């Protein structure tokens, strides 16, 4: 299994290939489309992270010390970023998740999608992933 840092590097390389925002966003959209559907039974109020506009459902479970995430969103762009986060964090150890530095999001030029005050729930999503990791760590 790759480390979070290794995956970050990989993602950065992926994004480096794009020549313009269109390619980047098309890639995100594709990621969103390809994200495996979350089990319908987890798409419940409790798992809902409410941004102002797009909704994100996040489920986490522990598997021999590692945390497995699954998620969904009603907006495809949000779902694309969610897919990136899952690629990065799902399957990692609780401790690594809790301490992960998710700076790559700035670096790939998606900072504006993550500002604390923006209309999506992404920042809450990252916070929630870390909280799950801490909670499920034993």
């Amino acid at each position: 299994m790759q480390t979070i840092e290794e995956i970050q590097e990989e993602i950065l390389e992926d994004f480096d290939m794009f020549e313009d925002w269109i390619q980047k966003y098309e890639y995100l959209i594709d990621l969103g489309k390809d994200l495996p559907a979350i089990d319908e039974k987890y798409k419940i109020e409790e798992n809902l992270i409410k941004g102002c506009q797009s909704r994100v459902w996040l489920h986490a479970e522990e598997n021999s010390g590692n945390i497995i995430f699954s998620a969904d969103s009603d907006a495809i762009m949000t779902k694309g970023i969610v897919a990136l986060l899952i690629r990065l964090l799902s399957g990692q150890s609780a401790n690594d998740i809790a301490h992960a530095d998710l700076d790559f999001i700035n670096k790939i030029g998606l900072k504006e999608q993550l500002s604390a005050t923006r209309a999506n729930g992404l920042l809450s999503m990252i916070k929630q992933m870390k909280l799950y990791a801490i909670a499920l760590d034993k």
Partner: protein
Amino acid sequence: MFEVDKIRERFPILKREVNGRDLVYFDNGASTQKLQSVIDTVSNYYKEENSNVHRGVHFLSGLATDKFEETREVIREFIGAEHTHEIIFTKGTTDSINLVASGFRSLLNKGDEIIISELEHHSNIVPWQMCCEYSGAVLKIIPLKDNGELEVNKFESLLSKKTKLVALSHISNSLGTINPIKEFIEKAHKIGARVLIDGAQAASHISLNMQELDVDMYCFSAHKMYGPTGVGVLYGKEDILNEIPPYQGGGEMIKDVSFKKTTYACLPHKFEAGTPNIAGVIAFKSAIEFISDLGFNTIAEHENYLLEYATQEILKIEGVKIYGTSEKKSGIISFNIEGIHPYDIGVLLDKMGVAIRTGHHCTQPIMERFNIPGTARISLAIYNTKEEIDVCIESIKKAKQMLS
């Protein structure tokens, strides 16, 4: 003749680029862009005239006070109110409505009724919910038809002797519906109810005359009228403003303060506690003058033309559904594209320099009514152009293509 280029020159921000493209600003329903003259008046006030208003005996204080009061008079004329002291300065429409809703708590008895509608902005819902919670009054809702008009018949059947207040928006910020408020006011008055109109979306688009409308209270915000942020107006008929108890306590709103007995100042000061947004109020005058000088005929002609053109073009895109198709409609187009979340459209349009708003537009009950998470909303202002609509339509097509 109306030359939109000349108008655009008066709004400096319209020259800027966003994400490498010329800014196309269609989020006017949220807040309009600002006139150079408004910006200059603010600067000039701070550079030449600044001082606290009222009470001061020195020159600057007198100057600031005179200018501050000039705006009040200009607004009186702009909205055809009878008395200058019927114009109360607030922070915005939300503040105006809360002022009234808070005061009504003590005018209402348990079981009294307040009527609002299904298409109200949260600012014209939540204050009444709070008012009802405190006073024991009951909130009644006029339902919405599929085309975004209110059900007038239903309104009539809600009216009764228990109705003490009807609070409606003049124009829906989500659907563009222009409500037939004169009709609503007449019907409400017949049974002795008071009427408050939320004119946040109306005041820069259609001509207002308080005396003709015979409306009891009317509110709007300067920032949606090419004016500064942090300034709003509550118009109220003298008698109702005298009935409503003071909202905030503090400087300026009192006649005499002692620990035994405090007496309140008369209108408008009774409702203007504390140091107001002096620079904002003074600059608001420049915005009102711009609108008055253009005239509402010109404004309506240009904005209606844009509305019709944009509607026609956007409907050519497959899968587009417009919410709000009332007969009388203001320059607001709320739409969705089948299978696409409005948020995604908003993000991609922004990348192409086009600013629209997406989401529930602070009107969640409308979204519930239509069972949608939100809409993408184009809202027009006097400085928008046909060319901007073309750019917007092209961008929507491109976004749709990317998202499908």
